[in-house]
């Protein structure tokens, strides 16, 4: 009964999402850049806390904390991922994903409030898994408008500050880069075994970039080596600058989730499932 009611509510919500997707122009990601995203998160965190404290039995509280909502939202996430996976040009920055991830975030937050602040078996595990997922989702979803990337072709002749956005827009960076030297070694079959670029940052500092070893230009900005001139002695390489201020939130969330999964493996089934298992082993119905 509850499931049917909630399916109706969420159908209306995602009907609106579909209408926005079909009728409105592209999702305005830039509008949600800092401080709008931070204000939205603060509003959700405080708003849901007050709602849960003041009106614990209100229809909205019950809808957001319901296990039926978990199943409905996860089913929609799976279906959306399948659609993305089957198309050649996925576009997760859309109205549909905005509605879906907002719903998932609010639901996860309400579930976290419900489970983290009450005595329950495996409470630490619950906090690590749900809190970690919440932060990882938050860092990725809310952090997208503040994330940017630029690519710079860096040559040996002179220092460069000219960078390009993925849409080929030009910008001038506050730092300059110049290629000093490029090392590349090959396997016998011609495949590159290793390559690294020795660069001069702001004409003063020597830095080395290689794959899997980015350079932290500032707390928010990292430099990555993405490509190079495929000749015996490369004269230029392509460096990518990624600005991602929310990476700390996301990274912290991922590490919490990893710790939670180690506990999930070590401690075994969640209590509810273990109880049902015993019942089945005794010959009862699940």
């Amino acid at each position, binding site marked *: 009964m509850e*499931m049917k009611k909630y399916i109706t509510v969420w159908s209306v919500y995602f009907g609106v999402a579909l209408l926005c997707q079909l009728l409105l122009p592209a999702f305005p990601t830039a509008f949600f850049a800092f401080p709008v995203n931070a204000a939205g998160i603060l509003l959700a965190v405080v708003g849901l806390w007050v709602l849960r404290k003041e009106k614990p039995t209100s229809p909205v509280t019950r809808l957001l904390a319901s*296990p*039926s909502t*978990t*199943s409905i939202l*996860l*089913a929609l*996430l*799976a279906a959306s*991922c*399948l659609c*993305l*996976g*089957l*198309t*050649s*040009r*996925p576009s*997760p920055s859309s109205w549909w994903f905005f509605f879906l991830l907002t719903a998932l975030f609010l639901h996860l937050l309400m579930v976290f409030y419900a489970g983290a602040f009450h005595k329950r078996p495996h409470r630490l595990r619950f906090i690590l898994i749900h809190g970690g997922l919440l932060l*990882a989702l938050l*860092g*990725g979803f809310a952090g997208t408008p503040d*994330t940017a*990337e630029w690519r710079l072709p860096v040559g040996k002749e002179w220092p460069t500050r000219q960078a390009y956005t993925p849409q080929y827009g030009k910008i001038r960076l506050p730092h300059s880069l110049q290629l000093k030297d490029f090392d590349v070694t090959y*396997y016998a*079959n011609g*495949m*590159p*075994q*290793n*390559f690294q670029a020795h660069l001069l940052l702001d004409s003063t500092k020597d830095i080395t970039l*290689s*794959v*899997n070893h*980015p350079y932290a230009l500032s707390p928010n900005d990292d430099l*990555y080596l993405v490509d190079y001139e495929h000749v015996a002695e490369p004269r230029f390489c392509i460096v*990518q600058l*990624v600005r*991602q201020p929310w*990476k700390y939130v*996301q*990274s912290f969330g*991922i590490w919490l*989730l*990893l710790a939670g*999964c*180690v506990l*999930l*493996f070590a401690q*075994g*089934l*969640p209590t*509810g*499932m273990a109880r*049902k*298992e015993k019942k*089945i*082993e005794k010959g009862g*119905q*699940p």
Partner: protein
Amino acid sequence: MTWNEFPWFAATSILLWAAGAACALLSKKSFSAGAAWLTATGLCVFAAFIALFWTVLQRPPLRTMGETRLWYSFFLMLAGLLTYCRWHYRWLLSLSTVLTLVFTLMNILKPEIHDQSLMPALQSGWFVPHVTVYIFAYSVMGCAFLLAIAGWMKRTERYRPAIDRLTCIGMAFLTLGMMSGALWAKEAWGYFWGWDPKETWAAATWSLYLIYLHLRLSGKGRTAVLNALLVAGFLCLQMCWYGVNYLPAAQESMHVYS
């Protein structure tokens, strides 16, 4: 040790596993120690090939599809043996052996190019944990899938405790694999998550198994829905592992290494 020696090791292992499966099926007791020992010996032979192959290649054998199938076969039998030792399902070893035989035959009949080269993107401390954890999760979910099919055909809920336990373990490893991949992706490409085709299929698989676990927790899932989720999850998992390579989206994937 090269790929040419694989058929000998594989044949020895398969024979031992088949003997173990036969022992389990024919034994009068619910648990046959002989079956467990034969399967374990087969696993040792298979593990010896992986170890020697690793040494000769001078890199972890985890790069090509054929190499991941090698690990899948190993972990699937290991998961099957552990499940048999814990729950004494005498037919499980036969099913695991048949499934492993399919993957082993694929490796013998259609081996991908095996060479010693390991491209720079894969030269990371995350490479071995990310891939082995994922393949182990795939194998455990493979066992859960076999049990779900058996339960579906026999119209029984007797296997549900084992399925729940395997899915719980598989989910822990699936998430460990996915999250270690996210940390590695940040180091290599600058982003934790990029909606790459492989990542998208991984998210779909993860969501389906998560629905299963939450339905079991809330006790609201009907048997048919639960089994359907396990089957759909397993199919998505196959897509994520190798099926995605055959989609047009694979052209843009960052996960194409071979």
